[in-house]
């Protein structure tokens, strides 16, 4: 659906921009763009939406080149820019009818389409208001509504949940999740749990280059070279520590909390090899007759992965 090849964009002498970005997104995929501020997320999106040209490289959306067949590309995408620029002097339905008209919704359907989309994003009770009077959260909804109005094949959302309160964030996320299916969605964010929640695939981008591209799960296993288990065990701390240490394949054991004279303590056990290893701790606890209160494999969060990828690159330099 979307194919980007060696895309490069430079802004004068400024180092910002993107360099040799290539990726491919299939129909129906939700892909997350992840990166710190100024990493090149918005630049990539602006090139895909035909707002600005690339310095070199090519990008196609639905088989059409963004530079050569700009009109065809533009009629197939819905775009929500980061700042959600809207005409503040227009009323919500008037604005949406204007956008529907420009995006080629047939005359007769415009009215119904606007009503339906306002219902979908929860704007119906704001119908009489001017966009300038709306709060940030509602403006974001108007932004989403204008992107969705012609039911586009591709949705490009630049930080769709930025600046919203927690409840609104959940609502918008549910909305985006509900949109997936036939649609191809690219969304950028620096809120990592959001990306891992919504996206099947993550593209991590930093300083204009793609640093990693995979599913959140694969990224986790790929990066977690050892795997860790968290266990809460009752018993003598010193004994437990030494027994855990003696287990085969254990790299390191830490005691997070607990009293030395019995009671319960939390321990992290780090194994050298990947794969499942919680059962080994459970087996040992059974043999030694320890009271095992809690046992869980510790996963790396996307945050940790992200920080690791970005910092690893820096240390390599």
């Amino acid at each position, binding site marked *: 659906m979307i194919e980007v090849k060696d895309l490069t964009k430079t802004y004068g002498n400024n180092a910002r921009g993107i360099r040799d970005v290539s990726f491919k997104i299939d129909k129906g995929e939700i892909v997350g763009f992840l990166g710190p501020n100024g990493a090149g997320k918005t630049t990539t999106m602006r090139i895909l939406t*035909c*707002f600005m040209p690339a310095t070199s490289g090519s990008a196609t959306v639905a088989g059409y080149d963004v530079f050569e067949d700009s009109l065809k590309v533009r009629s197939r995408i819905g775009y929500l820019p980061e700042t959600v620029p809207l005409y503040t002097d227009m009323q919500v339905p008037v604005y949406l009818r204007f956008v529907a008209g420009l995006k*080629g919704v047939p005359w007769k359907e415009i009215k119904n389409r606007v009503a339906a989309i306002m219902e979908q994003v929860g704007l119906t009770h704001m119908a009489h208001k001017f966009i300038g009077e709306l709060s940030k959260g509602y403006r974001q909804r108007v932004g989403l509504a204008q992107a969705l109005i012609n039911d586009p094949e591709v949705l490009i959302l630049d930080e769709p949940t930025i600046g919203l309160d927690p409840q609104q964030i959940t609502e918008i996320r549910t909305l985006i999740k509900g949109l997936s299916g036939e649609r191809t969605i690219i969304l950028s964010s620096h809120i990592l749990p959001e990306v891992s929640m919504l996206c099947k695939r993550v593209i991590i981008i930093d300083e204009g280059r793609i640093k990693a591209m995979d599913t959140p799960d694969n990224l986790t296993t790929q990066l977690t070279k050892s795997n860790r288990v968290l266990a809460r065990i009752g018993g003598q701390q010193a004994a437990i520590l030494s027994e855990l240490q003696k287990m085969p394949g254990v790299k390191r054991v830490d005691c997070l909390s607990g009293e030395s004279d019995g009671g319960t303590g939390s321990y992290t056990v780090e194994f050298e090899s990947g794969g499942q290893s919680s059962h080994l701790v459970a087996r040992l606890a059974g043999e030694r007759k320890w009271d095992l209160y809690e046992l869980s494999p510790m996963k790396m969060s996307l945050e940790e992965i992200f920080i690791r990828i970005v910092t690893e690159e820096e240390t390599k330099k």
Partner: protein
Amino acid sequence: MRNFFFILVKELRSYFYSPVAFVVITIFSALTGYYFYNIFANFSTVSFQAQTDPMVAQQYGILNVTEFVIRPFFGVLSFVLLIMLPMLTMRVFSEEKKTGTIELLLTYPVRDIEAVVGKFSGCMGIFTIMLSLSFPCIMLVAFFGDPEWGVIASGYVGLFLMGGAFISLGIFMSTLTENQIIAAVLSFASLLMLYMVGATAGFVGERMGHFLEYISIITHLDNFAKGVLDTSDMMYYLLFMLFFLFLSMRSLESKRWRA
């Protein structure tokens, strides 16, 4: 065609949602009304004096209401338009650039020509309303006197074309910057320059003089105000409009290829 229509309606709407249209139209009407009063009152005084004093009658010759009221009135209208129209056009693209709405507009499936011509027509709509509000003055002349309707018609055609030229230049200036003040100043400066350039014609030699006279945006209106419909004057204004609308399109488009 469809997109053109939607943009035109949106432009007209936003002029009236904000006070811009009301302010510009009101000020325009007030100024032209005041000037008209001066011209008309002066004419009535002169004709009264001419009736009683043969010296005055000789000095002015035949007192013709079309010649002494309608023609100067068109001149005044042209000058007030020069002041007011950049106020209408300065926001056209600058505002969209400043607020970032241009990013959405340019990522919709809209051709640049549709955006430019749509916005141009929106301004022309407001300008037509402005211009039509000067018509009651003409009606007043017709009530008391007997003006030549042919001259009035051709004068309005001329003003309409000239206003279009002012607007096209203003729109082009607004595509260049995101600052509305800069857009307005650039429009004023270039229009005033084109307005006055004819004054230099007398002392730069014959060839250059003809050229400057032809370039001047106001000399062509004189013919219209005299009731002379000359195709060369019409072509001047039409080409002027086409030229600046074309430049505006190019200026917008350049965002898409200027890497």
